């Protein structure tokens, strides 16, 4: 923690290759992203999380049968299979307010260390 605690870092070891970890994290985000009101705008209703796989692409949640969209943010770093970053706006943020999420995939032993940093 820095003097002002304005960021959170979480690390996990995944027993798959970095390229697989990166692919699962991005292309299959809707499959592993938790469901329910704590994790999705759609709450308990069906919704789909999309991550457009390119720099400048969007991370967004589509819900109410595709008629409503919450845009979480834009992809600000796209360097498969090692680095991904995106803006993060919660639905409660005021316009213009944003935070950022940075994810690194590092080969470690037989798998990959995934380090996620969420900054204010």
């Amino acid at each position, binding site marked *: 923690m820095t*003097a*002002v*605690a*304005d960021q*959170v870092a*979480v*690390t*996990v*070891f*995944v*027993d*798959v*290759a970095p390229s*697989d*970890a990166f692919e*699962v*994290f991005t292309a*299959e985000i809707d*499959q*592993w*992203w*938790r469901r329910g009101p*704590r*994790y999705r705008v759609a709450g308990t209703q069906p919704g789909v999380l999309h991550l457009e796989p390119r720099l400048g692409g969007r991370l967004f949640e589509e819900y109410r049968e595709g008629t409503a969209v919450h845009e979480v943010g834009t992809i600000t770093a796209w360097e498969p299979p090692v680095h991904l970053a995106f803006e993060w706006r*919660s639905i*409660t*943020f*005021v316009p213009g*307010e*944003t*935070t950022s999420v940075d994810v690194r995939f590092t080969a470690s032993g*037989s798998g990959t260390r*995934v380090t*996620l940093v*969420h*900054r*204010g």
Partner: protein
Amino acid sequence: MTLDGTFSALADPTRRGVIDLLRRQPRRAGDLADELGMSRPAMSRHLKVLRQTGLIEPASDEADMRARVYRLKPEPFSALRDWLDEVELFWSGQLASFKAHAERTRKRSP
């Protein structure tokens, strides 16, 4: 004051610098501007954001009662810590779910 507001108020490096300085002792606006190499009007805008977010408050200088200093308000920082704990819990849960899915679908045979 909202936690998102606190988070975004602290997103700016100058405002984080202000908080770091005020952590040590209350200071005048002019001293903060000098220390951080900002113009006084620019500093005044940053102080306004921090004041509106409820992170700092004006007080009288103990050495010179006519002068105004700024000091930290303690409450938002404990609220911010709670919020950061929540963010950490959120991502820990997400990454556990990510790990389970990745290993279920991609793990090489032992």
